[in-house]
């Protein structure tokens, strides 16, 4: 369908590092690339974990303080159950296996698909400094480390949108 004001570019900010937060960014980003929309992904704060080499494929989901989390069968997961050792790892493994069934790739492979289509991946300078990460800690295909000002420069243009996940 022809749009009068089509979206030409998306700039997606990922500031959180739980599985569901990172995948929101990856699915929106990959979807944009597949539509031929110019795509920039900007990872900051805990979202940096998604582009740190030895962390990106080991993300977890929160089992405490996550009221939408349910047990198999649909019952709400009691917060106290979440504190049992191994519960977070088990729940995260369950989520990842459910996603794999839908052909949703692991984080590193998903980012590969996005960059193969021309999408760009950036890290936030301030968050890098705060968590004491170096460029070498990051996934090889991260384009560069940006300040907020540089991010806004990058995000400019007609038909461009900034999305915060």
């Amino acid at each position, binding site marked *: 369908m022809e749009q009068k004001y089509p979206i030409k570019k998306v700039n997606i900010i990922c500031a959180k590092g739980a599985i569901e937060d990172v995948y929101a960014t990856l*699915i929106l980003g*990959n979807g944009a690339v*597949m539509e*031929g929309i110019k795509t920039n992904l900007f990872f900051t704060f805990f979202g940096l974990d998604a582009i740190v080499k030895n962390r990106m494929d080991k993300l977890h989901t929160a089992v405490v303080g996550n009221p939408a989390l349910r047990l198999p069968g649909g019952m709400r997961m009691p917060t106290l159950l979440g504190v049992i050792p191994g519960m977070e790892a088990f729940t995260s493994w369950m989520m990842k296996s459910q996603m794999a069934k839908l*052909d949703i790739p692991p984080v590193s*492979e998903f980012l590969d*698909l996005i960059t*193969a*289509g021309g999408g760009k991946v950036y890290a936030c300078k301030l968050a890098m400094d705060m968590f004491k990460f170096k460029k070498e800690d990051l996934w090889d295909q991260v384009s560069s480390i940006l300040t907020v000002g540089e991010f806004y420069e990058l995000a400019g243009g007609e038909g461009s949108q900034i999305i915060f996940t």
Partner: protein
Amino acid sequence: MAPKTYAGITVDVNEEGYLTNSSQWTKEVAVEIAKEEGITLTEQHFAIMEFLRNKHNKGEALSIRSINHSGVIDVKTFYQLFPGAPLKKATKIAGIPKPASCI
């Protein structure tokens, strides 16, 4: 649904130009649809379209990830062969429905 003629062959297409009956598809039809999309087809295009058509005929969902597992080409080449929106264009030219997948 409306009939459209490509290379002397009449096919049924939907409002977005996708063939509604994939058995009406021929390579000659593909060449003509590709022209409308600004693409000149090569052997590589046909090889990946054959993979997509086979997958569609088996009732399997199409995703960008499956291209990497096709053994035909990688995703990067796929984006180069069908610039812009590769999966949408490739399925259109291959005479199969537009994928309803988010990935």
